[in-house]
């Protein structure tokens, strides 16, 4: 096994590099992705090695980034777009929702748009407004898109390559506060789980905790800290399609479930998980599926984000409540 310890940012970078080496049609585009290497250095060095035609510093216009990426894909390219921060994906929302997601169906399958949209997401880095959003639910509700989130360097490396290879458009969420976390990365793709499968990040017996992106680490820490219960943590990884099988099997076994995400709970992705799990495991559940997440407000100023964001204690509080039901 060729595992080497990398930061998540570096693992992304190497995954992108690999994809570019394997397929000359793969392009990188976005604001500051060239000489600067992106504000999180995910594209560091790629323009130097692959040239300005393949690593494009774009005009400052997100609708333009996604719209021209669609055009490039129609011409046979595989663009990987970087949206600089989560809060800046909204100018591109129209192109994503009405064009990127729908063009395969609109064309009766004659067109495909293998476009990947990378979005560093989530809070916890003390940033100013619009730099800490978790907009995944907007995309999971949009049929035609695949939505995935990586949580660690190893997955970053493999999932980005799988996403680029995928013929469908993929919204690829990267947990920005975990960019500098290090972990071993196995460079052999053959060992990797398919990017549309959930994985059990930590097996357990008593309760299932579902998380993705930055909250996987938080959930694992909670599981570690809880001496009273054996917590199973599942890294959802693919939000749409959801790997129901893995999730339902776990909840049927444990009978309890807590969903964790940073996004506001109200009308968020956790609602889907809770509703679906409840429908499919109704008689297995000892307590309702509980959701831990951001509050139903705009993201607060960063000095308040520790309150706003789920942490180990809030996860454990929810776990405890499922036992007290």
């Amino acid at each position, binding site marked *: 096994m060729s595992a080497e310890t990398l930061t998540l940012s570096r693992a992304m970078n190497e995954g992108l590099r690999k994809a570019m080496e394997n397929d000359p049609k793969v*392009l990188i585009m976005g604001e500051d992705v060239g000489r600067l290497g992106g504000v999180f250095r995910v594209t560091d060095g790629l323009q130097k090695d692959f040239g300005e*035609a393949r690593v494009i510093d*774009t*005009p400052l*216009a997100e*609708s*333009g980034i*996604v*719209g*021209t*990426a*669609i*055009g*490039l*894909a*129609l*011409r*046979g*390219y595989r663009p990987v777009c970087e949206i600089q921060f989560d809060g800046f994906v909204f*100018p591109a929302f*129209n*192109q994503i929702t*009405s*064009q990127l997601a*729908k*063009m*395969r*169906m*609109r*064309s*009766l*399958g*004659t*067109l*495909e748009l293998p476009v990947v949209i990378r979005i560093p997401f989530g809070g916890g880095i003390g940033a100013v407004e619009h730099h800490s959003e978790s907009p995944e639910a907007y995309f999971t509700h949009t*049929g*035609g898109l*695949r939505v995935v989130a990586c949580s660690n360097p190893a997955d970053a490396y493999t999932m980005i390559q799988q996403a680029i290879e*995928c*013929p*469908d458009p993929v919204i690829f969420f990267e947990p920005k506060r975990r960019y500098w976390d290090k972990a071993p990365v196995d460079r052999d793709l053959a060992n990797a789980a398919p990017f549309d499968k959930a994985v059990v990040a930590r097996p357990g017996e008593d309760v299932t905790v579902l998380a993705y992106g930055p909250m996987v680490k938080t959930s694992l820490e909670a599981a570690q800290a809880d001496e009273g219960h054996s917590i199973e943590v599942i890294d959802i990884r693919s939000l*749409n*399609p*959801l*790997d*129901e*099988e893995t999730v339902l099997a776990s909840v049927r076994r444990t009978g309890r479930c807590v969903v964790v995400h940073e996004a506001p709970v109200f009308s968020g992705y956790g609602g889907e998980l809770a509703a679906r799990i409840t429908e499919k495991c109704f008689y297995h559940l000892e307590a309702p599926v509980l959701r831990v997440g951001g509050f139903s407000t705009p993201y607060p100023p960063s000095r308040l984000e520790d309150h706003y964001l789920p942490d180990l204690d809030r996860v454990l509080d929810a776990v405890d409540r499922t036992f007290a039901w």
Partner: protein
Amino acid sequence: MIVDAARGAPLGTDAQSPPSELVQLLTPEGERVEHPDYDVNLTPDEIKSLYRDLVIVRRIDAEAVALTRQGELGIWASLLGQEAAQIGSARALRTDDMAFPSYREHGVAYCRGVDPLDLLGLFRGVNHAGWDPKEHNFHLYTIVIGSHALHATGYAMGIQRDGTENAAIVYFGDGATSQGDVNEAFVWSAAQNAPVVFFCQNNQWAISEPLEKQSRIPLYRRAEGFGFPGIRVDGNDVFAVQAVTKKALENARSGQGPTLIEAYTYRMGAHTTTDDPTRYRLQAELESWKLKDPIERVKAYLVKNEMADRTFFDAIEAEAKGVGSDLRKRCLELPDPEATAIWENVYATEHPMLADERAGFTSYLESFEEVSR
């Protein structure tokens, strides 16, 4: 006073003013005129062929309007009056150029070899688009105003990377020039020097809104502000449109970047079959544009120059009629899609939840059949 101040543009709105800067090669009366920068050199057969296109396309359009009236289509966006803008520009394209239409480009579709029947699917509601864009180098209709200007620009960036001598052309209306996406496409194509031609059919109206709601100067001048050429052409003059588009495409193919063409024309019909233009515009305006009809002037030219006679015109008329009735017949035969089409082509490969939904719905449907059996 508030009303006036808010109505805007007291400096003098010349967006609607008589277009003196307009490239014209054929007058409404069918006279050939010279232009310092543009010329066409068409054989009589080529001119007759353009005439044929114009007539047939108008006929296809009329048939679709009739089919809508009879409930066979849900809606139709008529190109009536815009035939020359569409045929002239589309006939300037090479097969391996790529065209991105809006939703009214039935004339362009025809020139790109799309079976008119395939246009009807979307208006009938049996599909969202019925042709393979790659087969015709004619993209799908785009209904969300302006979005496809960016697609064309991106496609043109792909042409640059492929190193081939091609161009993309994108069609949109006067109203579309207000959308952020269209202006971003101007930004991108200029900064990237992309081989794309922006073909704006200024038909004077965006549904009920006249041009001055969008712009206080002629639209072709928008391009200057982005650093590439803009030109206004008589959109009812098939010769001029072809000449101007040809040159813009050549410039694009030879690395000289984008051009904006404003084809100055008129939407003779309603916005769509569900629209009622009598609510917002005057009959007189329509009448004045009737005198500039794009087909009549070619006919006048052919007649004046003795290039065609009654037999020719009758034959074209008959052919067009045939195309129309054939289209009607085939439209009525268009099958409705199966319910399961809902889950088709959403993703490239099997999506477990969609598969569940489909299976669930199928057995739900079967439960009714069981009951009724």
